[in-house]
């Protein structure tokens, strides 16, 4: 990891509406997607309409996201992308935005879709409050889960990419990379890392492992206490 790179955080504080007259917690784009979510699945999925599904999170950590995807087997482009989420305003908006990003302009190729980062989604949303960024932008993870599912179902096992990061908390799907990034962005204690990542919130069993990693990365980047 390039730890000299500029860190990415959410927008400082809350966001002001475009007319600057009234502040709101989210940007106008977020608001638009929140009040009018795009591409959500409003009825039970029709078997055969989709050829891949993905899932991330659990209600215990506050957000659960499921996605249904239809990929064109010839072009490997995403033709349809539907979702359901149990989550806050920015979870709904960022998922809605991702669904637009992967289906617009004739559909994104799986190759490109795999490269979508939370930062890209946030950029399209015009920013998110800092404390919301890490915990609520989950759709890139669900998307990669669905891409792997597509390759599994279409017998292209060689194209499945196992995330190089190690999943530390299977419930929130927080990886060692997420924890590393949180430490680099200034989180020093378990509470601070949880504030950024939700690791171990609702899954207390993994707390010792998380604390060990925090110590490891603190020593790696900032020296022993």
């Amino acid at each position, binding site marked *: 990891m390039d730890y000299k790179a500029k860190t990415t955080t959410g927008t400082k504080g809350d966001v002001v509406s475009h007319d600057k007259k009234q502040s709101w917690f989210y940007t106008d784009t977020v608001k638009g997607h929140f009040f009018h979510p795009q591409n959500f699945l409003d009825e039970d999925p029709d078997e055969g309409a989709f050829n891949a599904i993905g899932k991330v999170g659990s*209600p215990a950590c506050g957000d659960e996201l499921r996605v249904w995807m239809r990929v064109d087997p010839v072009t490997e482009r995403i033709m349809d992308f539907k979702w*359901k989420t*149990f989550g806050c305003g920015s979870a709904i908006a960022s998922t809605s935005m991702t669904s637009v990003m992967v289906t617009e302009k004739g559909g994104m190729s799986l190759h490109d879709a795999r490269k979508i980062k939370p930062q890209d989604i946030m950029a399209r949303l015009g920013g998110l409050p800092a404390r919301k960024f890490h915990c609520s932008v989950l759709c890139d993870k669900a998307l990669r889960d669905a891409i792997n599912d597509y390759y599994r179902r279409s017998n292209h096992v060689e194209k499945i990419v196992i995330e190089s990061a190690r999943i530390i908390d299977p419930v929130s799907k927080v990886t060692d990379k997420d924890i590393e990034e949180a430490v680099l962005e200034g989180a020093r204690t378990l509470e601070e890392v949880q504030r950024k990542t939700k690791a171990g919130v609702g899954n207390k069993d993994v707390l010792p492992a998380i604390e060990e990693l925090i110590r490891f990365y603190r020593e790696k980047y900032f020296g022993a206490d």
Partner: protein
Amino acid sequence: MREIYLDHAATTPLDPRVLEVMLPYLGNVYGNPSSFHTKGKEAGDAILEAREVVANILGCRSDEIIFTSGGTESDNLAILGYARANASQGKHLVTTVFEHPAVLETIRHLEKKEGFEATYVPVDADGLVDPEAVLSAVREDTILVSVMMANNEIGTVQPIEEIGSLLRKWKMSRLLRDPATGGRKSTPIFHTDACQAAGALPLQIESLHVDMMTLNGPKIYGPKGVGVLYRKRGIKLQPLQFGGAQESGQRVGTENVAGIVGFARALEIAQEEMKKENERQTQLRDELISRVLKTIPKTRLNGHPTKRLPNNVNISFMDLEGEALLLYLDAEGIYASTGSACTSASLDPSHVILALGVPFEVAHGSMRFSLGRSTTYEDIDRVMDVLPSLVEKLRAISPVRVDEKYWKN
């Protein structure tokens, strides 16, 4: 768009009658109450009078009233101040699992950093504390018991009088059993955080059997930045700050004169209007509760149906997340509050709702509507006009289905 403010448990608007009595102290009467001249004495007299008013309402002596910057400071002063000054008597504290963070985190700090031990008494599924359970948590080395009078999230009213009198009996029996130790010891003393209760419940110290009590201005249509700690005479506190002699040296620093004057007036009005407002708000509360539970499927009331503050409605809407519902309501001009993790700075769901023994999803989907003096039947109608469809909309995009044992009666 008409605004409907249903977040009175967070804070109340300043009563114009309170503002009126405060204004001179934000203007002409600017003296320092400690100054030895006419300008200072004007301000000093105002505090004296305010202290009398508060003492009268509580039925205590005026020197037992300490003005602070608010509920959080009063709780901190009561707990840190007492524990630190009386650590030689014992290092054990008793409280409940669902106190306000101003109490919980203060006690956790004492546990973590200052060598104290604490017992957290659980609450039942209705959000009530069992007085016997509090008593059985008390040990020989317990110096302080702190139980809130009414919960800030679910509004349940706790049996403070009963807990207070049980503690008194316990101390009495120790005195009879062992006059030597019993005569020397005054512990444990009993503190209650009455911030939420102050507008709705009687506050006479004598019948509550409390030794310390926290009150807060902005919950009773008073100004922000002012609160009270009632502290029974003879109770020793270690101050949290130093550098003056104000408030008998227990809480030093130049007084918030306008705030103190406003607090006294706000408490006066709250006590005068209590009976009328309690009756009115109880009807509105029950109307809102029954209409939500009847018209919107998969909902549950959090907290006891009747042993709750007249203004508190706390309902979990299954399968959805509270912040999203809060923001949809906000767009309709309806202001409420949620126990969801997403709106809290810690990203943890409400410890109060979890204490009732329900899973995370139920806490994430909880909404608190706290009514106030301005709330009318029309407001309830308006909420019921928009709420069902907003809930339906969020449920449509949610993949979660909460187990029916948590919402089916």
